[in-house]
């Protein structure tokens, strides 16, 4: 699934229209502890989080994620969105809950992350 297809699937708003949408999404994840995400994140991941500060973009960029999805219509700070545009990280905003987003993504066949030993 590409980021473009992820947007169509979830009906999420694209907050970074200039970020590339042809990237392949490899897996889905939902977590709000940034250190945890640093330990378990993967390249190409679509990451759902209620965190909206700058460090979200730093983590997504360092992990080379495909997209960050903010659930429940939570607004991301403009400064964070600006950083996302600079780093070409795709940020999506959705009215759905993290649970609903996970369900949609899983139904569409997007896997979770394999647990490392």
């Amino acid at each position, binding site marked *: 699934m590409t980021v473009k297809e992820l947007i169509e699937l979830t009906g999420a708003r694209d907050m970074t229209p200039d970020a590339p949408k042809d990237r392949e999404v490899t897996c889905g994840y939902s977590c709000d502890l*940034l250190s945890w995400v*640093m330990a378990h994140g993967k*390249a190409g991941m679509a990451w759902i989080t209620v965190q909206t500060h*700058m*460090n979200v973009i730093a983590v997504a960029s360092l992990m080379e994620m495909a997209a960050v999805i903010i659930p429940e219509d939570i607004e991301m700070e403009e400064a964070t969105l600006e950083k996302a545009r600079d*780093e070409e990280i795709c940020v999506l905003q959705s009215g759905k809950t993290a649970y609903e987003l996970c369900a949609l993504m899983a139904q569409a066949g997007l896997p979770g992350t394999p647990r490392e030993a």
Partner: protein
Amino acid sequence: MAVLMEKTFPVRAGAYETAGEASTTIKRTLKQLGVSADVLRHVSVACYEVELNLVIHSDGGELILQVEPEKVTLISRDQGPGIPDIGKAMTEGFSTANEEARTLGFGAGMGLPNMKRNATEFDIQSEVGVGTTITMSFALKA
């Protein structure tokens, strides 16, 4: 072994807004040098964790990047306050992060274990009232 490149990045205590900038620059630098994606990922994770630790826990410090033909080394050096019990600090889930850090999603107690997991070699030296030095190296595979 000859050091091909050395760069120092100062990191301010409590500077959450700019946290991650040094790591992003280091990742970009190594990418330009042709470091493989796999090694880059390990360096990035460890580098971000150690940078965040400087922001959250230290009284300010610096990150030093050294590149040699065989390995990349990251050194984090701060001016205190030092870690009283390194064994405890290395335990997954143990954290002394303050409320501000926790609100931002840090303080999971994963930082130091995450660094150790990602580095080829990991060393931590700390003295209360003096400071902490963390040295991590990452082998560059051909």
